[in-house]
């Protein structure tokens, strides 16, 4: 069994009001380390056995078509064992 992880983030130029809200909440709790915060999504896709290059290509395609919106988001695909 392997887990294919797809991370989806808003492009840097797209305003992220949720990330901003988190960034402004942190210092209120005494956490003063953050210069800024961006919030994204993480998908964990479980497959049987180790992924083949063809499967990874399929996941890339799904990330492009469904999991992310290329107009406002970027994605990154990686495998976690």
């Amino acid at each position, binding site marked *: 069994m392997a887990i294919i992880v797809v991370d989806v983030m808003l492009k840097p*130029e797209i*305003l992220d*009001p949720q990330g901003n809200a988190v960034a402004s909440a942190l210092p209120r709790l005494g956490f003063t380390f953050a210069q800024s915060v961006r919030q994204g999504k993480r998908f964990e896709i479980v497959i049987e056995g180790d992924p083949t290059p063809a499967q990874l290509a399929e996941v890339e395609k799904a990330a492009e078509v469904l999991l992310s*919106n290329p*107009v406002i988001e970027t994605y990154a695909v990686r495998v976690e064992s």
Partner: protein
Amino acid sequence: MRVGVITFPGTLDDRDAARAVTHGGAEAVALWHADSDLKNVDAVILPGGFSYGDYLRCGAISRFAPVMKLVIEAAEKGMPVLGICNGFQVLCESHLLPGALTRNSDLHFLCRDQEIEIISNTTAWTTSFNVGEKIIIPLKNGEGSFQCDDKTLAQLEGEGRVIARYVGENPNGSRNLIAGISNVRGNVVGLMPHPEHAIDSLTGPSAQGLGFFTSILNAMVK
């Protein structure tokens, strides 16, 4: 003239949209997201709501509904399509319109009467208006901030495809105060605020939203 109103699971404003179509003088035809034919409609409205629970992204799942395949094909051939609020989000996710709608800049869900200015009256859905006409219709959404890259924005502005802008303070962070846009041909229009809730003064802030629904009759008569 028959105007289809699509109901997805989670759609809210289909009844009001159908009522607005009837008030405008056309026949409203109910369409279901799983339908495999468009029932001979002449135009289609994608109403507001939270189709498929807004899971993943607003409109992202609805785009793949069986009926949307037919809507996309028909729109590409010139059939008039109006997407309101969630419908606008579906049209962007379907790539019938450029850009995307993102979280309101202040994170609040807005529900208020909003003044907008009509910028273009050459689309299938805006011929009943005068350019520069200001109307007040409800705005109610959490993800209504219109975003696109600079090149797309310049194209939309240069080609006269911004059809309406918010008047006054920017309610949600939309680029260039954009409240609605059209495709190049002008048959597909997306609009964030809700004209279908402003078709008579008994239930709405005005009856000025009716123009969108009478415009479509003009488009057919031509």
